[in-house]
C-alpha cells in the first residue's frame, strides 16, 4: 500500500481540468447532496456524476476495493435504518401505504422504502465524484487548488505536507511495529483485546516521538527558507485555467443554484410523491 490517494494518471477530459475546477465540482456536489433530499435533484446529480465518471476513463476494476466497501456499508446501513425505525419514512412524508407485514411492529411501507432509497442515493452520488476527484487530481496539485479557492496558503500547505508525509509515516509505523513484533509485541487477532491496546501504545509511543522530531526538522528547514514571511505564495504545480475550466465552473454554479431552487420549492427539502 504505497499509493496515498489512489491517483490514477491518464489522459482524459477530466484529467486535463485544473485541480481548482475539480475541487469546485467536488464541493458543489457535496453541498447540493448534503442540502437536498429532493429525489429529482438527487437523481439528476447521480446521472451527472456517472457521466463524469465515464468521461474520466477510470475503469471499475481500478476502484474495486472501494466499491466493495461502499456496497457492504450501504447494505448494513439499509438494514439498520429499517430496524431502528421502520416508521420513519411515514413520519417524514406524512402518509402511510402498507405493502406487507413482516412481524411485530415491522411493516414494509412505500414511504419507508422511498425514504431509504433516497438515503442510498445520497451515499451513491458522493461516490463517483469523490473517486473522480481523488483519482484524477495529482496530490501535489491538490494543495495548490485549495489555496486558489481562497483557503489560506498556510492551511493549504499543511494539507500538502500531510500528503507528502503519509507514505513516510506509514513506513515508520511499519518499521516500528515490525521491530516491536520481533521483541514479542503482537497486535494480531489471537491477542486479547486489552493486551492489543497495551501493545498498540508500545508502537504509538515511538511513532509519536519520531513524528515530533520530524516536525522540528521540517519546521526548522522551512524557517530557514523563510516560509511564512510573505502574504502570498505561488505553487509550482498549479495548472493554468482553460476555457473548459471556466465553462465547468459556470456549469457548477448553475446546477448549484438550480438544484437549491428546486429543492426548496415545497417549503422543505423533501420531494413528496405521496401528497395527493
Amino acid at each position, binding site marked *: *500500500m504505497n499509493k496515498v*490517494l*489512489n491517483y490514477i494518471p491518464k489522459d482524459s477530459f477530466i484529467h486535463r481540468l485544473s485541480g481548482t475546477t475539480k475541487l469546485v465540482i467536488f464541493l458543489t456536489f457535496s453541498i447540493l447532496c*448534503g*442540502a437536498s433530499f429532493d429525489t429529482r435533484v438527487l437523481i439528476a446529480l447521480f446521472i451527472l456524476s456517472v457521466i463524469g465518471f465515464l468521461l474520466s476513463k477510470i475503469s471499475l476494476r481500478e*476502484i474495486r476495493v*472501494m*466499491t466493495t466497501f*461502499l456496497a457492504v*456499508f450501504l447494505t*448494513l*446501513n439499509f438494514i*439498520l*435504518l429499517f430496524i*431502528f*425505525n421502520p416508521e*420513519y419514512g411515514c413520519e*417524514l412524508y406524512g402518509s402511510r401505504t402498507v405493502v406487507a407485514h413482516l412481524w411485530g411492529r415491522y411493516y414494509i411501507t412505500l414511504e419507508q422504502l422511498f*425514504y431509504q432509497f*433516497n*438515503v442510498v442515493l445520497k*451515499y451513491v452520488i*458522493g*461516490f463517483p465524484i*469523490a*473517486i473522480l476527484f*481523488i483519482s484524477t487530481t495529482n496530490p501535489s496539485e491538490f494543495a495548490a487548488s485549495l489555496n486558489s479557492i481562497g483557503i489560506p496558503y*498556510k*492551511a493549504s*500547505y*499543511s*494539507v*500538502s*505536507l*500531510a*500528503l*507528502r*508525509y*503519509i507514505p*513516510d*509515516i506509514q513506513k515508520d*509505523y511499519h518499521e516500528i511495529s515490525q521491530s516491536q513484533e520481533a521483541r514479542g509485541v503482537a497486535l494480531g487477532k489471537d491477542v486479547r*483485546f486489552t493486551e492489543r491496546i497495551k501493545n*498498540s*501504545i508500545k508502537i*504509538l*509511543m515511538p*511513532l*509519536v*516521538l519520531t*513524528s*515530533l522530531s520530524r*516536525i*522540528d526538522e*521540517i*519546521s526548522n528547514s*522551512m*524557517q530557514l527558507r523563510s*516560509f*511564512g514571511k510573505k502574504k502570498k505564495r505561488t505553487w509550482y504545480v498549479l495548472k493554468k485555467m482553460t476555457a473548459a475550466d471556466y465553462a465547468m465552473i459556470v456549469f457548477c454554479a448553475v446546477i448549484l443554484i438550480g438544484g437549491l431552487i428546486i429543492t426548496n420549492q415545497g417549503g422543505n427539502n423533501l420531494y413528496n410523491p405521496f401528497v395527493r
Partner: protein
Amino acid sequence: MKNDSVKKVVATGIGAALFFVLARFVAIPSGIPNTNIALQYGIQAVFAVLFGPVVGALSGFIGHILTDLTWGSVWWSWAFGTCVYGLIVGLFAKKINIYDGNFGKSEIITYAVANLIANIVAWPIIAAVGDVLIYKEPFSLVFAQLMVAAVADFACAMVVGGLILFGYSKTIAKSGSLDKE
C-alpha cells in the same frame, strides 16, 4: 516554542498524516457500522495538547477528510465532529503544562475534563445534528452510533492519549530538577 506559526503549520500536516495512517491501517471495529475504536483520536488529543486548538482541530479535520476520500465518500458531519473535538481539547492545552515536564494528577484531571466536554460536544451534539440534518437519519440510530463513538473515543483518548502524554512528559527535563551537590 508554542507560538511558532511555522511549527504549527508543520504540526498540522504531520498530525493529519498520523491521523490518516492510524485511521486507515489500525482500526479496531466496535460492532456498529462506521464506528471504530479509533486510535487516531488518541493521537489527535496528544497533538491538541502539545500544539493547541488550531492544530488539534485542523490536523483532525484534514486527516478525517483524507481518510474518507480514500473510501469514496466524505462524511461531513463526522468530519466537523472531529474538528470540534480537537478544538475543544486544544483549548485546555494552556492549562496542561506539558512542556514543563509535568503530567501529574491535576494535569490528568484537566485532560479528562477536556476530553469529556469535547466528546460530548463533538459526537452526540455536532455530528448527530449533522447526520439528522444532512442524511435525515432517525435520531435513535444516529444517537446509538454516536454514543458508542463518544464513549469509545473518550476511553481511547484517555488511555492511549494519556499514556503517550505521560511518556512524553518523562522525556522532558523538569524545570528545577537540578540538585545542588
